[in-house]
């Protein structure tokens, strides 16, 4: 057992310096979506709501409501509409109020409706 103590000491600290320094592996992680309002129409918003498995997306009139607290960054919306949805690159999700995690994205794209 003393050998394990020495092993632990010799291995040293291996944790990253995050958050003082960015984590090197962050770039490879899936992240929640970012939306381009100009590319979003009502029809497209409805399609995105349908593919979202965690119901993080809902449409309210001409607004797409995105609940970042419910999003699991599965990437289905990005896959369904790459022209309107891109990875945000944001994996630090923190808010002091639950409501701050809900974002309202206007639908500014030119659709049929």
């Amino acid at each position, binding site marked *: 057992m003393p050998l*394990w103590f020495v*092993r632990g000491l010799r*291995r040293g600290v291996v944790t990253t310096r995050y958050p003082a320094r960015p984590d090197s*592996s962050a770039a*490879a992680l899936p992240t929640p979506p970012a939306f381009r309002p100009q590319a979003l129409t009502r029809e497209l918003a409805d399609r995105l709501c349908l593919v979202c*498995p965690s119901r993080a997306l809902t449409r309210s009139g001409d607004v797409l409501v995105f609940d970042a607290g419910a999003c699991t960054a*599965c990437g289905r919306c990005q896959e369904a509409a790459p022209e309107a949805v891109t990875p945000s690159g944001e994996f630090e999700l923190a808010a002091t109020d639950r409501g701050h995690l809900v974002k309202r994205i206007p639908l500014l794209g030119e659709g049929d409706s």
Partner: protein
Amino acid sequence: MTALRQDAGLPGLLSLLGHDAVADDGPVVTVAVAATDTEAAVRRLAAAPGARLADLFASGGNPAIDGDPVVLRMVWGLDSDRRYLVTESVIEGERYPALSDIVPAAFTEECEIYEQFGIRPAGDKPLNRVALPPQVDPGFPRLGRPPAEQPADVHAAHFVGGQAFEFPFGPVRGVGVESLYYGLVTSGEELVDLYLFTWHKHRGVEWRLRGRTPREALFQVERTEGLGAVGVGWAFAAATEAAAGVEPPARAMRTRAIALELERLYNHAAATAALCQSTGLAVGQAAAEIALERLLRLNAAAFGHRYLFGVVDIGGARCGPDAAALRRELPGAYGELRRAADALLGTNSFLDRLEATGILTQEAAQRLGMVGPVARATGLRVDARADHPAAPYAEHPPAVATGQGGDVLARFRVMQAEAAESVRLIGDLLEAGAGPGCADLPEGTISRTGPPGSPDRSGLGWAESSRGEALAWVSLDEGGRIARARLRPASVRNWRGFDDACRSQNVFTDVPIIEASFWLTVAGMSR
């Protein structure tokens, strides 16, 4: 289509079942067995050397269709013959022969079928609750009709006498492990009996897959058992491909295999860390978790996801590996695991806790249809990569590691040997070339002729996940959507051996060690 091989064991088995020959010489042979002949057929198959019951499940029984019969299917692994035999029996009425009296490995599935389809084996044998929680009403989503009576809770007729007492533990447990209720019967130190409630994690995955396209379904299939996303996803994709008659490109199959071996590596590292935690070896746990974190980061660098979601696609692979990242990082990440394991194997206080703990005998493993490292640690050479080698394992066969004794130490050694073999296989597969690619799925109905009573478009798929053989059976409707999907992760097989291993003269504190060495998921069990 070729003639049936006369030297194989299959013709003999088929003649026992009253079939002269099969039209298809593929790796899966499907035959119809009359309901009245089911018991005799199971007796003959169970007595045949080299045949093991790999799965039992049902389909049909739609409550919206009056008189829609339930079709009972058994999947038999004919490992020495490198084939699977699927038998199909149409069950009229609410009873079928008690198959688990002949093949004990069928018991959990009999319970599942009762919960989901309302038909039960003949006799009054109490059936356990497997997936559906006790408070559900008859309208709860099921695959077929509800049973006439609610199944008893696990070991309903459970008596605790003498000096023993029952210690309830779970379903909420520490350190973020899955929901699982233990009923531990103990005299204070020795474990007298144990039973499990696994239904807290039931999500109705198979029910949710119906009516979806295979690609839509794959998203949920991968999440059936998150730590086995590639294994279960591959089995499901292979079943769909068999049903649709498509063959994925060779490069994509090698991509799947690389992801599957990476999944095996990180699971074995996680099991090593859990073994250290359960034996109170904190530095060893940290050492194994360093390896685990490096392997998970390597997964993300190679495939874009720490748990390898989204690699498998229906008809191939959605993305290819970053070969440069794998070649650069894999030796170092595996080296961490190797060093930790070597140090652990030189630590007597650790080995003392593992040796002769949680023994599962080879006879029990065979009787209960165990798979994966748990079965191999008893000396059974059961590995779908070697026994049923689909591409690319036919060209890149693995060296199957087996152990002796069936205790925790034997399982630990098997896992470490498999990790080394996975690293070798990944190197070989990268050399052979891997990348993304998908075969096109045909639109609409495909003209395939199945045996009487079977849907025209069905297929069986398999993969050797880190926990053992994962199976899937898929039936497609005329529009190419899923009519029935059966998922059988390895956890479904191996949990039934866990309580046997725990009861083999172990003390209370051995249970977490045995659980870590089995390294199963509750999510895969209750789906």
